[in-house]
């Protein structure tokens, strides 16, 4: 977690990005959270909203990681990390777990991304490097089946290349699937005519976000500043 606070420059920290995404999770939602920043989202769901977390390997209704020493190797999530159970949890086999996904029963899935295109295309599994060993896991099933797909990602790569593109250059995970993107700089929706800049991080201006985005941003009329708590 050492790089959770690496963003000293203006923009949200990783926990702040997760916090922002968490505000969009409604009471009673069935939610699947990807590995990485998406996992953090569960910590920040506003009090009073009851959310049921699904993990691909067949646990519905899991809770936070156990106390150290309480890990059960047979009770893990799709990231292969130990979890706990909440009241109302249920175990299912893998085909039933993906029936929940493919059948449209999960409300929200939040994933990481390598690239997102202005039409909602998502690339998050492969650089297409011929030497890379392909590994898709459940991402293609999630983006094809879950009702609403949200992405949390840094706005650019470490070397400053845009990740929000006119078209993805990397092999796709799904076509036209992403609805909303939470970055360290902004909240961007995928609209009918491409990216819509909905919210912007404190201390960041629209021009900066546009410069770091490789597709036109339509600025929402009611553009707002993200009010993430300090100190996250």
């Amino acid at each position, binding site marked *: 977690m050492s790089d959770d606070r690496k963003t000293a420059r203006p923009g949200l920290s990783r926990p702040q990005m997760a916090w922002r995404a968490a505000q969009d999770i409604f*009471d*009673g939602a*069935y939610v699947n959270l990807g590995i990485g920043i998406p996992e953090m989202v569960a910590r920040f769901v506003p009090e009073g909203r*009851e959310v*049921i977390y*699904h993990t691909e390997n067949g646990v*519905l*209704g899991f809770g936070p990681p156990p106390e150290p020493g309480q890990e059960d190797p047979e009770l893990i999530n799709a990231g292969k990390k130990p979890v706990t*159970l909440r*009241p*109302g*949890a*249920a*175990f*299912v086999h893998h*085909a039933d777990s*993906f*029936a*929940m*996904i*493919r*059948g*449209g*029963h*999960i409300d929200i899935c939040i994933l990481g991304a390598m690239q997102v295109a202005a039409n909602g295309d998502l690339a998050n599994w492969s650089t297409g490097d011929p030497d890379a060993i392909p590994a898709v896991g459940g991402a293609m099933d999630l983006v094809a*089946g879950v009702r609403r797909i949200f992405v949390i990602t840094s706005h650019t790569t470490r070397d400053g290349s845009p990740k929000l593109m006119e078209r993805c250059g990397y092999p796709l995970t799904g076509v036209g699937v992403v609805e909303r993107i939470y970055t360290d700089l902004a909240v961007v929706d995928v609209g009918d005519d491409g990216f819509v800049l909905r919210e912007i991080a404190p201390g960041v201006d629209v021009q900066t976000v546009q410069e770091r985005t490789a597709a036109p941003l339509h600025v929402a009329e009611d553009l707002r500043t993200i009010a993430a708590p300090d100190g996250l």
Partner: protein
Amino acid sequence: MIDKRVPDVAAAVAEIPDGASVMIGGFGESGSPIELIHALIDQGARDLTVINNNTGNGGVGLAALIAAGRVRKMVCSFPRGTTETRFPELYRAGRIELEIVPQGTLAERIRAGGAGVPAFFTATSVGTPVAEGKEHREFDGRTYVMERALTADYALVKAQQGDRFGNLVYNKAARNFGPIMCMAARTAIVQVSAIVEAGELDPEVIVTPGIFVQRVVEVSDPAIESRLIAQGATYP
């Protein structure tokens, strides 16, 4: 807080509109959600498409819904009951449509509907009149027909216990179509003999996870169809 409990069967079925498609659980009398069906009769929705393995028995439950003229179309495998019903008369008079589906194909189409699989292939019915007009295809030297998924606006299901999340366990052979119909319906409405506290159902033994259920209503002493029929009961 998630709370899928509703106070009574009338509230549970209140919004079902005319023209809705309704999967009704049960195989014969086992698992038949009689109280929900009777509430639907009281509620008055018409022109329903009903998916059930059979067409009910005697003058109660599904048979009563059909007798009341509320069903425009039946999708089933075996439109006969253990006791006489009005279905044959309505069918012969052209007042109710019938789509005959082999029982296992019916179950698999419903399961596919719940699992987001739009179509699949099965060897069932190949070479029979039931396969006529369906797409045929060979895999590894055997011929199969393509079948489409079945979904519905609503499911009416009977289970044994449920909690506020909609988690369910069933009672013996009453399980039958319940789990897959809950999966395949946009709104699954379940009557249970007992609502239990959250966490009381062991996660290892839950048969239908709550994600597939939208409403749970307690009917603590559900009627037994064959006893009603033996008593000569009819509904309403």
